[in-house]
């Protein structure tokens, strides 16, 4: 019974934890501009993140090594520093966006301008990381994030033209919008990069150490990943579908968080909005925690500092100092007045460096019997892993030219 509860909890938190501000807005932007013609990218990215998150969790449980320690060991200091710089910048930009996202969600709930919420949100994130146990922070934000299921329900209540939605799923470069193929592919690469963003793997593998997983817990972690992540992706897809049903026909191209919520208002009115806003706050807050922790994990694991929430802050002092500094920098970026949502767009460039340099060492170590004993990758996992590494490489090479050609998808 306890085992079943643990599995259910794991799955639920994986669903709730899958969606962050980038997913909320990007899904909605893409849905309102391209309909569901980019849904296949989401499916592809979800398979990829499931594969590598599971692999990194297995490495962590069996060898006790978190992902960035492995990156350092296998890539050597120089390449690892390149990855650290790129990953850390992505983390910082994502953190900026997430804190901004909390503030935007709070604005929706209160009408108080986001500028006043930035410091409150950053402080709240810090205090939770400082004082709350890992399992509690993971489970509570994950469960509250489930409020976003309202988007999945709304898809049905909006009575869409199912055959039209279905044909969008199968059509490539969308027929009834004026977007150029380059813009389409730019968003395809950006969506793929966002689905496979390295911080999720850093967080997942370090979380396995925080919760002291052993090889016997692997079955449960596999269920969490294989059920939770895809269901989370369905939430993303629902958000895109809601935008495609309500906003695309009206010619509204989403640029702000409140527009993401408008289809819910249309479907369920005020009650639905309250649930959706609760989901926004939980999802952005949960993601802020994950990203802040990831910044600490990557730095500490690269330099070999003590890290982890299972230690008292004074026993992982540089880890906590790094997280405080990250929050301060993110707050500083927000206070310059940039649009928090657009901040994430720059991170596409850094993903091009970070993605291959993160997933290659995981794949190599997952095959090393010195680390893994009997738990080395099977043949099928290796073949799929190599295919994804290929896709990641192509996406990485294409990312920067596409960004320049399309003016970042304008």
């Amino acid at each position, binding site marked *: 019974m306890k085992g079943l509860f643990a599995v259910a909890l794991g799955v639920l938190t994986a669903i709730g934890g899958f969606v962050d501000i980038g997913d909320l807005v990007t899904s909605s932007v893409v849905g309102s501009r391209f309909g569901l013609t980019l849904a296949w990218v989401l499916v592809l990215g979800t398979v990829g993140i499931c594969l590598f998150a599971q692999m990194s969790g297995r490495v962590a449980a069996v060898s006790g090594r978190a992902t960035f320690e492995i990156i350092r060991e296998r890539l050597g200091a120089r390449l690892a520093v390149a990855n650290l710089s790129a990953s850390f910048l992505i983390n910082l930009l994502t953190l900026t966006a997430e804190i901004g996202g909390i503030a935007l969600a709070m604005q929706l709930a209160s009408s108080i301008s986001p500028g006043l919420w930035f410091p409150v949100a950053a402080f709240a994130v810090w205090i939770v990381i400082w004082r709350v146990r890992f399992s509690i922070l993971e489970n509570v934000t994950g469960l509250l994030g489930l409020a976003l299921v309202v988007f999945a329900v709304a898809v049905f209540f909006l009575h869409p033209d199912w055959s039209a939605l279905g044909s969008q799923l199968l059509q490539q470069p969308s027929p009834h919008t004026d977007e150029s193929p380059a813009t389409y592919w730019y968003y395809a690469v950006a969506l793929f990069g966002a689905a496979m963003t390295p911080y999720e793997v850093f967080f997942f593998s370090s979380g396995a150490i925080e919760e002291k997983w052993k090889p016997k817990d692997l079955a449960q972690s596999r269920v969490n990943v294989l059920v939770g992540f895809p269901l989370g992706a369905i939430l993303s897809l629902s958000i895109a579908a809601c935008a495609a049903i309500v906003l695309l026909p009206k010619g509204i191209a989403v640029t702000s968080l409140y527009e993401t919520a408008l289809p819910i208002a249309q479907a369920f009115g005020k009650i639905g909005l309250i649930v959706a806003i609760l989901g926004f706050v939980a999802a952005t807050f949960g993601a802020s925690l994950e990203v802040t922790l990831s910044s600490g994990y990557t730095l500490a694991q690269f330099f070999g500092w003590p890290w982890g929430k299972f230690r008292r802050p004074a026993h992982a002092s540089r880890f906590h100092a790094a997280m405080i500094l990250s929050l301060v920098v993110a707050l500083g970026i927000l206070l310059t007045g940039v649009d928090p949502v657009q901040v994430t767009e720059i991170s596409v460039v850094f993903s091009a460096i970070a993605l291959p340099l993160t997933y290659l060492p995981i794949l*190599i170590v997952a095959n090393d019997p010195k680390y893994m004993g009997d738990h080395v990758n099977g043949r099928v996992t290796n073949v799929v*892993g190599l295919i994804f590494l290929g896709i990641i490489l192509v996406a990485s090479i294409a990312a920067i030219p596409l960004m320049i050609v399309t003016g970042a998808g304008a």
Partner: protein
Amino acid sequence: MILSDLLGSPVLTADGERLGAVVDARLVLDGPPDGMLAAARVYGLVVSPHSHSSFAGYERTGVDAPALIARFLRWRARGSMLVLWADLASFTDDVVRLRPGATLYSPRLSGDSA
């Protein structure tokens, strides 16, 4: 001397022919006890003719998965060899020179046949 001084240094035969670059140093823990372990002496140098560094050591370990990566990295490290310390004549100006008649050995780690 630090390890980085050795790594990357070119290796020349006694005749001045370039064999490659030092990509690793093989240590053996068979000296007199030094604290908790035996002293670790430099047993030899791993030399690669085509690359300045080794990546993931596929040419030395018995690991061959994932096949495509293993094959590529072995190709990159093709022709790698081990030269023993006893066969080194000098290490000056960041160049390692071998003694006449130095033997080239396989770089494989024998304990790694897993």
